[in-house]
């Protein structure tokens, strides 16, 4: 194979592109990954705070989440790199009946798909998360198999192993167009070179719409931005990721967990969403998120905030990812619109894409693809975005 021709070209070496390159290379395919950034995971992968869950509200994401957890949780054992995985679980808290109802309703489908999750009333729940503010607490869910890891370390691990299996990575190269011939995508043009392949994967995150448009494909993705932060490390005192889905006047949910290093990583969803690709820090974030966090876990009052940043959530109209072949043109495989969950879904998506390309999808994967297909109606609404 010439140095310009590959089995698969991936646009984007981020949360999706890096693990996908790994699984494709592992399957023996010649892979090229092109990314405009200078190294792996420098788009929004590194903006993720590191939560990994299968506790979603629909079978497709539950499946991808479970696959991802399988990869993350066994990575160190199988490959040696410490990606700082901890199976700390996820807890959604309920201080009002509305949230209790939502969470309890979701338990049905979650359990049906084999998730190890349950509802716990106040006293039992406080045993799982003793640091919670008990005032007004009703209870919450706890799913012990979810967890967390380091997005940056994960991306670097996928990258390193993909490379050692023969995948090529071209950093600092911007995709300027998709090469088309007879209505098919046959390659990728960059500011430096044109590369050829029968399969191009769009894993361009927040820039996915622009990349798809290069082949005349319209994907309904609109990024919005969320700010996140991390504290100093302290002795372990919170086990699961805590998610509070109560909306307030200026924010929707917020969530945080204690990373393997002892640091608390946190993020909040602004309400209304802040659309666009602005990644510059604002003065709104820290007072907004700190007040809610200290209210939920009073002990956090004395933890020191170290660093903040802002990342993009490539949102789709219904809050579910878009995975599958583009309908308008042959050869373009979409793995886009992860709605801020690219990191936690990445390995699962990578496995799925590999099966698509190898034409070896299972019946379960077929259902997943049916749910996430690009030409769906986008009518529903993800309940645990």
């Amino acid at each position: 194979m010439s140095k310009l021709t590959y089995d698969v070209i991936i646009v984007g070496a981020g949360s999706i592109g890096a693990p996908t390159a790994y699984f494709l290379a592992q399957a023996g395919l010649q892979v090229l990954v092109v990314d405009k950034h200078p190294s792996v995971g420098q788009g929004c992968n590194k903006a993720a705070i590191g939560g990994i869950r299968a506790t979603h509200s629909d079978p497709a994401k539950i499946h991808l989440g479970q696959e991802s957890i399988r990869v993350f949780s066994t990575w160190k054992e199988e490959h040696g790199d410490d990606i700082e995985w901890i199976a700390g679980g996820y807890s959604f808290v309920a201080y009002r009946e509305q949230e209790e109802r939502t969470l309890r309703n979701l338990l049905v489908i979650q359990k049906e798909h084999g998730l190890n999750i349950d509802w716990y009333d106040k006293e039992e729940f406080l045993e799982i998360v003793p640091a919670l503010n008990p005032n007004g607490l009703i209870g919450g869910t706890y799913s012990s198999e979810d967890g967390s890891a380091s997005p940056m370390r994960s991306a670097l691990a996928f990258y390193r192993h993909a490379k050692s299996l023969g995948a090529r990575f071209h950093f600092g190269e911007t995709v300027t167009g998709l090469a088309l011939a007879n209505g098919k995508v046959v390659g990728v043009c960059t500011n430096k070179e044109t590369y050829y392949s029968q399969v191009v994967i769009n894993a361009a995150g927040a820039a996915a719409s622009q990349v798809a448009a290069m082949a005349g494909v319209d994907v309904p993705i609109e990024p919005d931005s969320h700010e996140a932060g991390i504290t100093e490390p302290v002795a372990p005192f919170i086990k699961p990721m805590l998610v509070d889905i109560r909306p307030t006047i200026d924010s929707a949910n917020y969530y945080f967990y204690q990373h393997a290093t002892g640091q608390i990583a946190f993020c909040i969803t602004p309400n209304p969403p802040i659309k666009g690709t602005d990644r510059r820090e604002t003065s709104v974030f820290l007072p907004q998120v700190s007040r809610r966090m200290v209210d939920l876990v009073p002990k956090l009052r004395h933890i020191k905030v170290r660093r903040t940043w802002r990342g993009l959530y490539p949102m789709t109209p219904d809050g579910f990812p878009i995975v599958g072949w583009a309908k308008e043109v042959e050869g373009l495989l979409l793995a886009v619109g992860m709605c801020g969950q690219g990191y936690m879904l990445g390995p699962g998506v990578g496995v799925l894409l590999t099966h698509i390309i190898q034409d070896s999808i299972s019946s379960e994967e077929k259902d997943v693809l049916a749910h996430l297909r690009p030409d769906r109606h986008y009518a529903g609404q993800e309940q645990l975005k």
Partner: protein
Amino acid sequence: MGMEQRIQTHPILTPEERNRVRLAWEGSDCFAYEGETISAALFANGVRVFGHHIKDQSPQGIYCANGQCAQCTVLADGLPVKACMTLVKEGMVIEPANALPELPETSASSFTAVETIEVECLVIGGGPAGLSAVDELGKLGVSVLLVDDKHRLGGKLVLQTHRFFGSINACYAGTRGIDIATKLEGLVRDHPSVEIWLDSTALAVFSDGLVGILKQGNEYALVRPKTLLVAAGAREKSLIFQGNTLPGVYGAGAFQTLVNRDMVKASNRLFVVGGGNVGLIAAYHALQAGIEVAGLVEAMPKCGGYKVHRDKLARFGVPIMTSHTVLSANGDGQVESVTVAAIDENWNPIPGTEKQFACDTVLVAVGLDPVDEFYHKAAEYGMQVFAAGDAEEIAEASAAIYSGKIKGHDIAAELGYLEATSTEEWAEIAEVLKSKPGAVILEDTHPIEPGVVKPIFHCNEEIPCNPCTSVCPQGLIFIEPEDIRLVPKYIADEIGKECIACNKCITICPGLAITLVDARKEGDPLVTIPYEFGPGAIEKGDMVTVVDIEGKALGQVQVERVRLTRASDRTALVQVHASDSMAPRIAGIMVQDLEPESKIQLTERITDETIVCRCERVTLQEIKDLIAAGSRDINEIKGLTRAGMGACGGKTCQPLIQRAFRELGISPDEVTLNVPRPLFVEVEMGVFAGAGDE
């Protein structure tokens, strides 16, 4: 633990009378003074290992003493705090930080909203530049908020016990830095439109045009300024060498803070790395505090600081080794010695030239970097932002004063308080004050004719300084007013007047570089020498070694008289008799006579660890291996090693990582720099939440 590490007497500073407070350190009672920092209290009690790093249990201690890093973290009443920024309290229980801290049990909080303040100008930093700018703005009635992270105004001026260079008319030359701080503070405190927040740290400049401030250490405020002046000063550059993070290795600023602000005898024997003005002056301050200076190395063939500073040190008996570098700081848990070596023209150590010096402290004074993050962020966010002083360009404090005045007027013009600025004259003065040292002139050491009395200028390098010309009541000392960088000329013959031996030129000289030779009486001439080592350090009848301009011993002479007058402002005048030929050559008196190093028994404990990121304990080897493997993105190196992810936010390691790239021959164009993120320093979440007790 006793109180033996306090400076009880000092030639310039007077220890304040303060109340004692009781503390517990590792379970033992000790005493401190009210109003001092934990770090000062611990040093005063002989403690300089403040904890151990969780990654490798390496000992940790003071490093910046400036609130910028978190190396000095201790647990105070259970909470991790920076020892250098936190004041002691009666009954405080202080423990070393050896493990991840446990957060204290806290009951539910009540919350107050964050205050947002609008001002015409926000000034970050109350040092010479910031205060000078605020003075100009205050005179024009501009509403100014000045924030400074320290407990008092003046910036680094408050650490400077020496007299300043420059010109008397323009910038307080001949006045001690500590006194300039007081004068500038007096000016800004007089303006009703100026509000000052001390103990208040700027945390971040946000894209919505607001600046987050940690107000008075415990409250969060957002400021929306029409204009922003960044006068945040400088931070010291770090250096990569073996053992560079051992407790006892720290910056000159940290040393001056402990010694001149806190009046703690931080060291018994010091070694200085770096022969710029900062290192030279810090070494002088050490001697004044009764601390031995074992030596000073400078990598260049010549010290970069003013020759008068260098000569002064050499005269006091400090070995100065140029074309030398530090190889390692050695010791078991803290510094016990330092190893240096000569370097060749390619900066490589020359084998066989290694020398060891016993010392307990290694001062790193290898230059300064501007603290300009806020400036760059604000510029990126389209704010009206200005920078002054070291934050704009590293230079002397005198130049910073002018830079501040100029920016003050620029801001006033921007705000419409001035129609136009006319700061060209100030700019010219600032340029002169920023000048690097110029030519070295041969000293005139001709014997004095009998019957004559006159000053001798042991000041033979062109630097911007002229206070001697302004104090001579006879007008006998001349420096071209157009260029104060020229060396002084004695013009008694030209103008037909005579020296009246008033000694004013001797005491005002910041370089202690003027002596007076009096040959009016029969016998050997009488030489008057400035001496700043306090009352009692030298007395009538003492035999002293007098030295020439560069410290070469001329002989032993007896002290005739020591005078310390109000007018001489803490500079003693020592008089000795010396022969006709020796008298004009005497430039000073040796104050320390060190044992030859060969006689000192050294225990050799050289660590092979060379740390680049001190917060996360990342070694130079780890960084170099990644660069060699192809990494060109510092963000990737950060992800792999955590270098730059620690408490200081990469302030220390980022320049060192860039340097590692250069050393491996990688062009800066190929390297992607670390993306700077808020916050400037770590702050409790409860502060942002506005949390109070319910």
